[in-house]
């Protein structure tokens, strides 16, 4: 037994080392940048970091504004692309980003991406406020699903690592970085991060299996909360410039309420096309999914942009 255990431990250690090496060589997990929380309470990435995308030879780079992705401010007209991990898109090469694909449709417009994993609806709205003096966008495209709204309400569940809104007191609750040391350790060990992604035990697996429709997690539509949220939005942000891009499967009541409060909306339709997603253990859009999304957004933009 002693011999067996010793050999098993040796085998296990070598397997871990080989695993770490293989994951690094084949870039089986993306490099994850470090975050900070700015004075407005928005989480951004520390500028000038670089790293690799999954299974790619190309590198991502955090721009001076603290975002990953394109930040084209050289055109007279700029459109901001805001959202969560779908927009950040670390799991695909940058050529599949919404900003890049949309740019291919609109030659004379610059696209500025501000995407980060975990952005709720209210944080997305705060990002519009942050970007306004920097790029003065013609429009803000805010990509959202039902969950992004429910995660905005602090009275439902308080997520300390996310920006939320206290609807009762009409105040924004800033986020705190969750376990930064643990995350640093997890992300620096590629094997651990690989296992964490591949076998999401005890993980808030919000994207697992959500290939096409982002079904809300036991969320029942509460008209009162949504009225308060949109009312706050109308009073505090440039709602007329914000176009909400709803993921397929977003609750219809949310979309109709947003329309009532003057938001421009686009409801994405995947028509049950399974290849929009990356797979059963990752519901983020694949490059194909991103191209289909961009096509639908382009159709809408063509109707509102004054060339």
């Amino acid at each position, binding site marked *: 037994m002693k*011999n067996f255990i010793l050999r098993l431990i040796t085998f296990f250690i070598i397997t871990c080392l080989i695993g770490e090496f293989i994951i690094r060589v084949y870039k089986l997990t993306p490099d994850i940048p470090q975050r900070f929380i700015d004075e407005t309470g928005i989480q951004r990435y520390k500028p000038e970091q670089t790293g690799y995308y999954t299974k790619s030879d190309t590198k991502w780079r955090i721009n001076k504004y603290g975002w990953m992705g394109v930040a084209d401010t050289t055109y007279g007209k700029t459109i901001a692309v805001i959202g969560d991990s779908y927009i950040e898109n670390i799991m695909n090469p940058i050529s599949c980003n919404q900003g890049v694909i949309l740019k291919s449709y609109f030659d004379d417009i610059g696209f500025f991406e501000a995407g980060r994993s975990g952005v709720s609806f209210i944080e997305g709205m705060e990002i519009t406020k942050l970007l306004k003096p920097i790029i003065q966008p013609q429009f803000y495209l805010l990509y959202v699903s039902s969950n992004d709204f429910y995660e905005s309400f602090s009275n439902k569940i308080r997520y300390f690592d996310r920006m939320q809104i206290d609807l009762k007191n009409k105040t924004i609750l800033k986020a705190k970085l969750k376990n930064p040391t643990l995350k640093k350790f997890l992300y620096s060990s590629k094997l651990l991060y690989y296992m964490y992604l591949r076998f999401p035990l005890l993980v808030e697996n919000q994207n697992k299996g959500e290939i096409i429709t982002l079904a809300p997690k036991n969320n029942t539509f509460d008209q009162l909360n949504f009225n308060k949220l949109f009312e706050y939005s109308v009073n505090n942000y440039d709602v007329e410039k914000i176009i909400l891009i709803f993921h397929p499967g977003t609750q219809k009541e949310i979309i109709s309420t947003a329309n009532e409060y003057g938001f421009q909306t686009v409801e994405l339709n995947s028509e049950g096309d399974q290849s929009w997603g990356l797979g059963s253990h990752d519901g983020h859009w694949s490059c194909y999914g991103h191209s289909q999304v961009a096509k639908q957004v382009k159709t809408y933009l063509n109707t509102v942009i004054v060339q």
Partner: protein
Amino acid sequence: MLFNSIDFAIFLPIVFILYWFATNRNLKFQNLLIVAASYLFYGWWDWRFLSLILFSTIIDYSVGLRLSKQENPTKRNILLWTSILVNLGFLGFFKYYNFFADNFITAFSFFGAEIKANSLNIILPVGISFYTFQTLSYTIDIYKRKLEPTKDFIAFAAFVSFFPQLVAGPIERATNLLPQFYIKRKFEYTKAVDGLRQILWGLFKKIVIADNAAEYANLIFNNSDDYSGSTLLIGALFFTFQIYGDFSGYSDIAIGTSRLFGFDLMRNFAFPYFSRDIAEFWRRWHISLSTWFRDYLYIPLGGSRGGTWIQVRNTFIIFVVSGFWHGANWTFIVWGALNAIYFLPLLLLKRNRLNLGTIAQGRYLPTVKEFFNMSSTFGLTLLAWIFFRANNIEHAYKYISEVMSPSFFSVPDVPQKAIVIWVLILFFLMIEWIGREGQFAISHIYKLPLLIRWSFYFSIIILMFVFTGKEQAFIYFQF
């Protein structure tokens, strides 16, 4: 709990340590630990269905004890049928209720009668077909006086619920597995290492071969209307390797895990795709189920004794029932019947036991005749798998029609990435071919020097990291 999950990777070492270090001095405690671990393993999926296993265990334990004391044939029959009806009753309700209800309604509507549909939203308990057959074998063997009943309830509960093979087999016989719970297990280094080796190979089959093949098999079968005959053929080939890698991979992990705990389970797969005829295929595919049907259905029906008609009837019954065991769908029944049609000529010409040994034994390559026989058997099996995988009979018919259409000669429409999967499948087949005379493909590797052996293991692990497929549930869980 899935074998290819992190949950199991945590569960297994904990149970292993408790088994060999905390409870090893007392057989009762060791068996009790197996029961507790097995119930946890099963309850991880849905604890509510543990009651079914417990109920089945209590019924068969009690029936077994009473059968041994009972000499009155009528009362013995009543006891036997109590066990059969309880076990098959559960199986029938959970697995076949909606099938029979739907077909009943369809049949009556055909004659103009309107019956209101009353199908139930029933969850199929994982592994019910496996443990039901396992406990049935216990009662039947006692009834036939082939086995003495156990008085040790814990040992019996461990036999019924033994976690490595609880949800997808091999379907163990009480005569083989139950006595292993009576004797104190001793840790054997070679057995444990061999078990780990088999687990590694099983994981490779599942994660690299089955899960990758599944991606394309699903894509092609789910969109079969959009593809040409040549692509559909490739889809069927992908499924052929998916189901083999998936199920035999599970069996390898189950057998390997049992060996870690000092148990020997029966072999379930013996390189079936290297069979030279269908009879040989069925001696090598899902052996624990085939032999179960042979011993508890085919032989009691008269087997191959009697006239030609009896033989034909019995063959059809066993294959159709085997198909139906897989699921409540006509596709499985047709799959079974098709295999019966393949098998009958061999049986009637008394050529069903021609190929009892291993193909090309002692040689590197098969003869031309062997290769031809192997390929044609593989082709027949492939055709049958289309029925097994199709959504319904119409889907299977359209699928096969398209394969046989002129579009068969067009260039297949398969992504380039799929070529990598074929390279992996070829590598897999090569290793299986080299190891075909062993219990499993890499069982002979222990003869090689440590450095080569470990290099091979690590190569397999590297392939698992790099080519891990999109995680899929084990196919046989649904049966």
